[in-house]
């Protein structure tokens, strides 16, 4: 009996340490936040990831002739995951901001959309300092929306911070928050969904620099090589029309953020 115990102990130790060995370097790991964020990324019951960002990722990888792997990570750990080399690219609707650029690099912007406030149809809430006095604003952690809400209304309203946008949406429906501030398209998908029927856009947030310059892929500062490849691929997709092809599947307006 002792032999088996010791043998299992050794086996377990070997198993545990085998994980420390260098990972297969071939596939480029794209980190996606592991929560439904339609129409950009969401997981179906079959386990397959679908959405605009997923399709764009596949197209970019095909264009750059790279093997890519989708890795699920927690949103509030996505930058540490990048720095820890658990993923190579952040591809999860992350806005390009000054603050983030101090720590990581970004690829070319691959979409740009404004932020909006969403509340119940029946609510006559005004999006202003007076209107939001004493109200509860729901935002996702580590987002430009959270930063803007704190900056603009932090002194009059209560800002509730959620680990995922999905949970924030659920709490709006549950009545635990009065209004949401998030990406226009993501909230549009929410409004169009079953549980979002009673909600509507109340106002669009002004174009504050805190929102950054669109959404791009997050990269480690030293990965210039990979960054160059991805940028070339993104540019190519915009030029040869494949970007529009993918975008048309989900949107009937231009989200590329380019004024050409």
């Amino acid at each position, binding site marked *: *009996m*002792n032999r088996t*115990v010791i043998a*299992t*102990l050794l*086996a*377990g*130790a070997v*198993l*545990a*340490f*085998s*994980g*420390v*060995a*260098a*990972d297969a370097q071939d596939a480029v790991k794209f980190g996606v936040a*592991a*929560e*439904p964020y339609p129409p950009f990324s*969401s*997981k*179906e*019951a*079959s*386990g397959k990831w679908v959405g605009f960002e997923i399709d764009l990722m596949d197209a970019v990888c095909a264009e750059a002739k790279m093997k890519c792997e989708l890795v*699920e*990570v*927690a*949103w509030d*750990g996505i930058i*540490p*995951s990048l*720095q*820890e*080399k*658990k993923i190579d690219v952040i591809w999860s609707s992350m806005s390009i901001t000054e603050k983030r650029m101090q720590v990581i690099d970004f690829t070319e912007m691959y979409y740009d959309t404004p932020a909006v406030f969403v509340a119940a149809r029946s609510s006559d809430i005004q999006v202003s300092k007076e209107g939001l006095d004493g109200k509860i604003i729901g935002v996702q952690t580590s987002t430009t929306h959270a930063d803007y809400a704190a900056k603009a209304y932090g002194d009059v309203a209560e800002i509730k911070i959620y680990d*995922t946008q*999905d*949970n924030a949406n*659920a709490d709006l429906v549950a009545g635990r928050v009065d209004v949401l501030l998030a990406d226009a398209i993501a909230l549009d998908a929410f409004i169009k969904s*079953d*549980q979002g029927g009673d909600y509507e856009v109340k106002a669009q947030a002004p174009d504050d620099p805190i929102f950054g310059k669109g959404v791009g892929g997050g990269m480690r500062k030293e990965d210039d090589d990979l960054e160059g490849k991805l940028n070339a691929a993104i540019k190519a997709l915009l030029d040869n029309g494949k970007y529009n092809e993918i975008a048309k599947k989900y949107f009937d307006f231009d989200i590329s953020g380019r004024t050409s």
Partner: protein
Amino acid sequence: MAAETSYTELLSFGDQGWGDELLLGGWLTIQISVCAYLVGMALGLLGAGAKLSGNRWAGWIGDLYTTIVRAVPELLLIIFIFYTGTSTLGQLFGAIGLGGDIQVSPFAAAVAALGFIAGAYMTEVFRGAILAVPKGQMEAARAYGMPSALRFRRIMFPQMMRYALPGLGNLWLVVIKDSSLISVVGFYELLFSAKQAAASERMYFFFYSVGALAFLALTIASMVGIFVAERRVSRGVRPV
């Protein structure tokens, strides 16, 4: 959407149901727990040895280890190890001189975090168990001229395990439950898959209940196993 698919369909395998995702999560939970438990046992034996060695520094390190794990929430330790582990390890290795790129897989990071936590509790279990073995046994072995490795293997270890088993059994349950915490850092296991299913289908109560029941099944099965093991290990010992 929720009204159309029945409960059994939601849980089924294949494309429409989340059953396969949940089962995969459960399998990963078991894998992680087993590996973390074994790592914890190794750390526990080391820790107990350090504390009992009589060496002042070793004892001090052992105490520091158990105090930190005892006082700091597991979730904080897991977040810390997950988000800083690789860079800390890289810096440590760099300081020693082993340069190069350290790549720690998420699985290894999860096992390390959970094993680190389990190890501190194991230290206490093993320390108590080793102290419970009558001193005369080891003295007799030494009188016979047994080398220390043989002494440990044939005299200390079997008897120690008998005293340690209740604590070890309880710790196994603790490890299984603590493994659910790694879902917070986005690691795919049982609770995480339940969370994803619940969010996708907007059926929170249902899927979280299913997840909880799955854990309950694991713990009940474990409790049966522990009961059997305790009976086996105590054979030949006069019932108290």
